[in-house]
C-alpha cells in the first residue's frame, strides 16, 4: 500500500517547481500578460515552452519509442500542478496532455510522427474538444469528403499553434494545419489574459490525416485533459493559500499581525482543510487513468467539478485575506484568481460534470 508519490515523482515535482520559481516568477507572468494585451494574436510564448522542453516536460506523455519519457498521467498531473502553482502560461494542457494521449492511443504511423514532433516542443498542437460535451452557438464539425466544415468553440492552445486536433463527432479525429486554407481561427479572450481560447471556423479545410474509429482515443484525450486541468486548478489554489498565510503574517493592523486574529486564521484553516483532500482525489483520479481505467471517468468528473468549487471559494477567501490590496492589479493575487476562474469553464462546467457523474452511475431521470 503506497498512496503517494514515488521518489522519481518527488524529484520531478521539486525540479520543476524550482525551475518555475527561478525562470517564471510572477514578474515574467505579468510581462507575458502585458505582451498578450499588446499583441493578442501572437498567442503562445514559444520561448518558455522551449525551456520546458529542455526539462522534458513537453514529452511527459509521449512514449519512449517516440523519444518522449513515457510517464504516467500522475506525472503529467504533477507538471500541471506546478504550472498552475506558478500561473505559467503554457500550452501544456492541449499540446502536452490531450494531444499526446489522443495520438498514442491511435497508434497510427502518422500519429507516431506527430508524437515525435510534440516531444521536442518545437511543434505545438491545439485541441478543439468542447463540442464533445457542450454545444453552443450551433457549433459542430462535419466531414464532406476529406474536408472539414463547421465551427468549433473554445478550442484550447490553438492561437499560435502549428496544427489543430479536431474530433469530428465522437469517433473520428482529424489533424489540420493551423495555416490550412479555409480555416479561420478567432481568438476568444478569457478573464485570464495570460491565456486564451479560440473559435475555429472551417470551410472545406483539408486534413493532414484522418483517423476513423477513434472513439476511445477521443474519450481518453478528454479524460486526461480533465484530470490535468483539475491538477492545474489545485496547484493554483496551493499558491493562493501560501500567499494568504504569508500576507497574514506580514500585515499588521490593530497592533498585531492580522494572522493572529481568529477571523483571519479560520479563513486560512478553512481553505487548506477543503483543499488538502482535493489533492488526494486528483492524485487518485490520475492513478486510475493508468491503473484502474474503469474508475477513471467518475473520478475525473468529480476531481474537476469538486476542485473547481473549492477553488472558487479559495480564490474569493484568499482575496479577502489580502483586503483592499488583494483587489489591485499590483498585488498579483488576481493572476491565480483568474487562472482558476477560467479553468472552471474549460472541459465541462461543474454542474454539467456532476450530471455526467450521475449518469455514469445510472442515477438519473
Amino acid at each position: 500500500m503506497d498512496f503517494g508519490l514515488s521518489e522519481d515523482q518527488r524529484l520531478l515535482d521539486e525540479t520543476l517547481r524550482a525551475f518555475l520559481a527561478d525562470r517564471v516568477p510572477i514578474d515574467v507572468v505579468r510581462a507575458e500578460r502585458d505582451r498578450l494585451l499588446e499583441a493578442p494574436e501572437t498567442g503562445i510564448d514559444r520561448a518558455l515552452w522551449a525551456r520546458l522542453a529542455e526539462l522534458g516536460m513537453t514529452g511527459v506523455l509521449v512514449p519512449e519509442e517516440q523519444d518522449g519519457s513515457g510517464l504516467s498521467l500522475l506525472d503529467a498531473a504533477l507538471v500541471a500542478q506546478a504550472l498552475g502553482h506558478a500561473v505559467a502560461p503554457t500550452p501544456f494542457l492541449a499540446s502536452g496532455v490531450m494531444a499526446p494521449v489522443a495520438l498514442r492511443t491511435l497508434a497510427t504511423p502518422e500519429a507516431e510522427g506527430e508524437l515525435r514532433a510534440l516531444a521536442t516542443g518545437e511543434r505545438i498542437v491545439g485541441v478543439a474538444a468542447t463540442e464533445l460535451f457542450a454545444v453552443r452557438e450551433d457549433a459542430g464539425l462535419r466531414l464532406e469528403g476529406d474536408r472539414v466544415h463547421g465551427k468549433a468553440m473554445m478550442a484550447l492552445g490553438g492561437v499560435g499553434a502549428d496544427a489543430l486536433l479536431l474530433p469530428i463527432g465522437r469517433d473520428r479525429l482529424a489533424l489540420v494545419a493551423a495555416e490550412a486554407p479555409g480555416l479561420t481561427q478567432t481568438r476568444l479572450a478569457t478573464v485570464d489574459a495570460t491565456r486564451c481560447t479560440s473559435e475555429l471556423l472551417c470551410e472545406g479545410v483539408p486534413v493532414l490525416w484522418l483517423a476513423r474509429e477513434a472513439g476511445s482515443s477521443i474519450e481518453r484525450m478528454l479524460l486526461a485533459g480533465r484530470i490535468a486541468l483539475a491538477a492545474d486548478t489545485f496547484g493554483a489554489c496551493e499558491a493562493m493559500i501560501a500567499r494568504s498565510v504569508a500576507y497574514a503574517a506580514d500585515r499588521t493592523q490593530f497592533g498585531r499581525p492580522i494572522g493572529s486574529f481568529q477571523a483571519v486564521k479560520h479563513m486560512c484553516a478553512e481553505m487548506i482543510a477543503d483543499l488538502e483532500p482535493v489533492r488526494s482525489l486528483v492524485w487518485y483520479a490520475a492513478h486510475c487513468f493508468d491503473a484502474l481505467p474503469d474508475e477513471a471517468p467518475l473520478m475525473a468528473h468529480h476531481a474537476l467539478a469538486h476542485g473547481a468549487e473549492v477553488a472558487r471559494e479559495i480564490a474569493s477567501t484568499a482575496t479577502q485575506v489580502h483586503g483592499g490590496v488583494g483587489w489591485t492589479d499590483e498585488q498579483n493575487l488576481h493572476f491565480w484568481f483568474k487562472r482558476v476562474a477560467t479553468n472552471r469553464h474549460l472541459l465541462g462546467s461543474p454542474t454539467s460534470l456532476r450530471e455526467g457523474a450521475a449518469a455514469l452511475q445510472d442515477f438519473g431521470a
Partner: protein
Amino acid sequence: MDLEYGAEYDAFREEVRAFLEAHKPGNLAEASAEDRSAWLTKQIEHGYWARTIPTEYGGYGAEPNLLHTIIMDEEFNRAGTLRGTPSQGPSMLVPTLLEHGTEEQKRRWIGPTMRGEVIWCQGYSEPGAGSDLASLQTRAVADGDDFLISGQKIWTSTADKSQMMFALVRTEADAPKHAGISYLLVPVDSPGLEVRPLRTMAGDLGPSSFNQVFFDEVRVPRSNVVGRRGEGWKIANTTLKHERNSLSSNAEGTWMRLAKLMRDETMNGVPAIASPVYRDRLMQLQARMLSMKYHALRMLTCALKEEPPGVAGLVAKLENCQLSFDMAALALDVMGELGALYDHAKYERARGHWQAHSMFALGLIIGGGTAQIQKNIIAERGLGMPREPKPAKA
C-alpha cells in the same frame, strides 16, 4: 502509487475471514456480559484484538502493523460485527497506560479493560472548562495516602455503565494552570460520587448514555495517579491524540445509504434521485466523500512510511464531521414533509435515523475539540500562523 496490499496481507485477510466465519457470534446486542467478554477473549487469543499489547498485560503481543489493523477493521466491518469494543477504555485509557502507567497499573487494568470486564468513562470536561480544558476546577486534595476529590464533570458518555473513570483533576492548587493537573483513576462506585443522566437534543434516539458526574470528597488512593502528579495535562494530550484519531467516520457507508434512500423515496410518484436538484447535491457529497476516502489512504501511507503528514494530517476531523452533517441534511430534505417525523410517528422513515444522525453529527462537530478549536490547530500548527496574544493578567 500502489494500492495493492500484497500476497502476505491477502493471506492475513483470508485468515481473518475464516476466523469470522467460524466464530462470529449472533446478535451481540442481546448477549450477556459474560458472552461478550468471551467473544473479546477469543478475538485476543487469535490476535484480532489487543493485537499489539504485550502478553504480560493480557494482549496478543504482535508487532504494530497498520495494514493488519486496517484489514481486520475491514473484515469485521464486512462481517457486520464489531472488532473489540468501541468504548473509551481500549481506545484512550489503554494507550495512555502503556505509555505512562506503572507496571502495577498496566498489569491490573489493561487485560480486564481489553476483555470488556472493566468499562471506563472519561472525566475531562467541566461546565466551566470546555475548549479551555486546562482551566478545570475539580480538585483533589491530598489526605494521607489518598486524594479527596470534589467538583463536577460533564459530557460523560457511559458513566452509568462504567466501573471506572480516568479523570483530570487539579492536585496542585498553587501551580500554574497547566502544571496543576493530575491524571487519576477513579472507581465509579466510590462513596460521594454521583452520576446523573444528561438528556441530549436527540432525545431517546440520541446516545444511550450521556451524563454529569458530581464528586463530594470522593476518596481515591494516591497510587491511582497515572504518571507523575502535576503532569496530567501532558498525559491527557496523548489521550486526546487517540480520540482525534478515533473520530473518523464511515462516510462511504453513510453516502451509500443516502443514495439508496434517494432511489426509494418518491414524491408525486417520482424518486428523489430523478430530481436534478437533489441529484446535484448527492454528487457534490459524493465528491467530498471520495476526497476523504482517498485522503485517508494518503494519510495511512504517511503513517506507514513514518513521514509527517503536515497540515494534511490535521483536517480530517473538521471535514468528516461537517460531511456527515451535510449528508443527513440532504436525506432529510429529500423526505420532504415526512422528514419532520420523529419518535416512532406513523410514516417515519428509517425509524427517525436521519434526524438523529443530523443531531448526533452536530454533537461530533462540537465534541472532541470544536470545529473552531480544530481551525485554530490547523492554522497554528499546520500553517504556522501566529497565536492569539494572551490577554494581559488582571
